[in-house]
């Protein structure tokens, strides 16, 4: 069959087969939109988050079902590989969906405290954004990739701005929008060159063409690759394309910040890995060095920039920048050989780390929400004496921070260790060492927060300190985060074995 010119008929069952979770999410999104039109404002406010939660849970179930489908029938595809169904997509989708689920649950508390927020819009934008992310994980064509990227991005811009009347939120959204759109332009521009040389928008076919044309058209292909890298780099906040992140993270509402940090970033990685592995696999031995430099730069600058940071959200933003550096390493290792095992290993590392990152980031933002709200500011000082006020939150926050810092028996540590093993495996000793050396530098600021939590005195000893409560929704997220972080850290095999059983690609 001629993939470029042939026409195929697509039935709904085919579509359902491949993209059931996405469809459910889209339909539910529109349903909430309509629902909002027909019911009273109060009901809509109350019910739409729950509708969202239910939708996401259903989508999760469907994704899990898709694992079975892939296992039984092999990977599926839609419309000349415009969209594929494989475990690579599934596993990323799970991360997105759980991220969205946790975001939604956290948002319930956020809605309560912020009556001005348009809850239904918020909810369906979140769902749409997630659909965009899911598209990025499953798309197999530059067009679908770009569409997915933009769905996520545009939804995110609005979500950041959703805190009505909050100047910081709109400013953050504006910054995100400007930089994000420029990045989109870079991506599109880069894609145009790739397309121009290969004549393909399909990644796999494009990859074949690239391999053929590489010798001849290297500068243009490289130009396309690098332009795309810059654009993607903005989305996953690689240094020096990261500067929007602290401002946007600070401006956005806490649930949205965690959504950006987790879902948006994970989606970016899904996209990058899919594109680069399929599109540039054969040339990766030459290209990986650029990624390696970005990884190193991101780890160093991300961690160093956080040192002087006193605002906890900005600090976490820098931390998440640094995490992007760590996460890039598995992809870099593929430059030293793209055999199947290496790819599987690299994907396993990325997904494991992202899973751990999901739990620790969500948990940290849940605690942060409660603490900063009570303190009325977002500086580290808000955490002073937290251990006295709420030992549970203090301990939970410590676990999350330690996990981010890469201290043992946490998911963050094992994730790093796993990435580290991959780097050593391919002989990238320097990058492996840098991974843990920059982590050691990061101790400085993570432990700075920890010290505030444990060492800080809010008041004279002996006087009663007001206890700090935790709304049930945040509490739930903290517990999930805690269990996930420690569980993945202590029994990584629970997840590793799952990852090892996957049929990543066709």
């Amino acid at each position, binding site marked *: 069959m001629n993939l470029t010119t042939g026409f195929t008929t697509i039935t709904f069952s085919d579509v359902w087969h491949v993209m059931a979770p996405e469809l459910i999410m889209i339909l539910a999104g529109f349903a909430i939109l309509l629902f909002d039109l027909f019911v009273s404002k109060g009901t809509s406010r109350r019910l739409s988050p729950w509708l969202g939660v239910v939708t996401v849970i259903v989508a999760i179930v469907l994704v899990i079902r898709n694992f079975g489908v892939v296992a039984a029938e092999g990977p599926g595809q839609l419309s000349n590989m415009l969209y594929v169904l494989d475990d690579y997509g599934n596993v990323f989708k799970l991360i997105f969906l759980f991220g969205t689920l946790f975001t939604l649950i956290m948002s319930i508390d956020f809605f309560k405290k912020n009556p001005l927020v348009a809850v239904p819009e918020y909810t369906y934008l979140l769902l749409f954004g997630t659909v965009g992310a899911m598209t990025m994980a499953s798309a197999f064509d530059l067009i679908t990739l770009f*569409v997915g990227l*933009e769905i996520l991005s545009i939804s995110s*811009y609005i979500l950041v701005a959703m805190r009505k009347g909050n100047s910081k939120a709109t400013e953050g959204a504006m910054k995100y929008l400007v930089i994000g759109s420029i990045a989109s332009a870079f991506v599109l521009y880069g894609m*145009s060159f790739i*397309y121009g040389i290969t004549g393909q928008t399909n990644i796999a076919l494009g990859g074949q063409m690239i391999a053929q044309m590489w010798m001849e058209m290297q500068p243009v292909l490289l130009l396309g690759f690098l332009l795309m890298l810059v654009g993607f780099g903005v989305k996953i906040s690689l240094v020096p394309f990261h500067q929007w992140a602290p401002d946007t993270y600070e401006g956005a509402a806490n649930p949205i910040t965690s959504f950006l940090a987790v879902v948006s970033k994970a989606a970016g990685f899904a996209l990058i890995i899919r594109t680069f592995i399929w599109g540039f696999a054969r040339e990766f031995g030459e290209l990986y060095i650029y990624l390696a430099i970005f990884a190193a730069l991101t780890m160093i600058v991300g961690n160093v920039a956080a040192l002087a940071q006193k605002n906890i959200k900005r600090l976490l933003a820098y931390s998440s920048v640094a995490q992007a550096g760590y996460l890039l390493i598995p992809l870099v290792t593929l430059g030293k050989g793209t055999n199947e095992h290496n790819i599987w290993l690299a994907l396993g590392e990325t997904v494991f780390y992202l899973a751990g990152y999901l739990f620790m980031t969500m948990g940290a933002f849940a605690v942060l929400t409660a603490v900063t709200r009570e303190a009325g500011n977002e500086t580290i000082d808000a955490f002073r004496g937290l251990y006295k006020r709420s030992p549970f939150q203090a301990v939970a926050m410590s676990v999350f921070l330690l996990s981010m810092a890469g201290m043992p028996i946490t998911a963050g540590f094992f994730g790093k260790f796993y990435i580290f093993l991959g780097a050593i495996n391919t002989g990238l000793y320097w990058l492996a060492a840098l991974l843990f050396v920059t982590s050691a530098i990061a101790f400085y600021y993570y432990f700075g927060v920890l010290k505030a939590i444990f060492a800080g005195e809010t008041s004279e000893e002996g006087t009663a300190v007001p206890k700090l409560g935790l709304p049930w929704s945040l509490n739930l997220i903290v517990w999930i985060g805690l269990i996930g972080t420690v569980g993945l850290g202590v029994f990584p095999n629970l997840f590793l074995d799952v990852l090892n059983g996957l049929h990543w690609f066709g």
Partner: protein
Amino acid sequence: MLSVEQFLTLAAILFCIGLYGALTKRNIIIVLVSIELMLNAANINLLTFARFGLVPAINGQVFTLFAMTIAAAELAVGLAILIALYRNRNTSDVRDQDLMKW
């Protein structure tokens, strides 16, 4: 007959103008328009390649359609945010938007 290079050069110039505008103009609307310019430069590229590329194919034109739609959506959202911004801060100057820094 116009050659590929000329189209590509035009696109590159447009891209650079857009970039320059996005990075220097004070008014957010102009910034948004400049970004549109960048996206359109990419669109020109896509179309050029769809017509004159090494392997001419229809995909490029399809891609352009999608890109245009997306650009429009982006601009719309951008304007919406601008309005919110203006309500909050009473200004549409990009350089005034530095509540968050350091």
